């Protein structure tokens, strides 16, 4: 089992526990990326609404407007 994040318009819209990224693409369509809860890949375990920077292959956090 892995965790996969669905990316839509450059942002994370949901994260599922799933057999594989390919399984998510087949079952639900769209673009998916593997993520890990320990944050060991792609910079962090993303939150829904975080942006994905494909040039760095990293997620970018939503920051508060200070």
């Amino acid at each position, binding site marked *: *089992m892995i965790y996969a994040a669905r990316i839509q318009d450059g942002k994370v819209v*949901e994260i*599922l526990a799933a057999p594989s990224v390919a*399984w998510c693409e087949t079952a639900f369509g769209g673009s998916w990326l593997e993520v890990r809860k320990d944050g060991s890949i792609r910079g962090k375990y993303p939150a*829904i609404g975080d942006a994905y920077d494909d040039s760095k292959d990293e997620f970018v956090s939503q920051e508060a407007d200070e």
Partner: protein
Amino acid sequence: MITRRILNSYWPANSGAELLVVAGGGGGGGTGAGQYGAGGGGAGGILYAAGVSITGVSWTVSIGAGGAGGVGSTAAGSGSVSSVTQLGLTAVGGGRGGRGNGATIDGANGGSGGGGGGFPGNDPGLGTFGQGADGGTNGTQAVPFRGGGGGGAGSVGATGGAGTGNGGDGVSYWGVGYGGGGGGGSGTTAAGGAGGYSIGGAGGNQTNGAGGNASPANRGSGGGGAGVGSSGNTTGGQGSDGVVIVRYAGDAIPTVAYTGTMSTSTSGGFTTHTLTSSGIFTT
């Protein structure tokens, strides 16, 4: 404690299956240097159905992950939906907890709403009717400046501020609790709010900093809000993943199969399939 259990003795063998769909819990809010604790994450939404035909079915099941905890001024993540597509059952993910110190990150709406962060104006999120309850507010601005508790499937999160900030209660199905809200974090060495139903994450405080992760796994509970640390940013706890449970009278159907992760048990004349990752369920 709210119990929605259906007693075995009143469940005839030919009445089809029962389904429980639980979404992922929301992450607890983060906080930083200052005096305000963060809000607890809301529980994932819960849907129950009975009398569902289970003969010759093929269901696409999604299992929503628990949300990430927030860190300092970085927003926590709400939980993700769990669903059974062919039955039109979609449980909404739990709302994230609100930020502690500093403005502009409210608790989010969800299956149950995230608790409001301790900072004035960081409001709680609302729950979804029929799936969960609202998050708790941050209350009056008074010691120990707790964040509000995350909403639970069974009750609203407790008010923070000088209130307990406890996470809302979960609900019980077949003797197992689901959907506890995360406790709000504390701004002092006083304890953070308790996790709802003992399955939501506890809020942190000035001694331990981080909010607790929701535990055990696959209960759709919210993470604890971060407590104000002795220095720097502190982290909210992660929400726990969702689950889908299929239960019916009698022995396991010989042809049952699942492409994701499934465990099966038979007890008291009932078979229970517990699905903990997404997949295709067939009989």
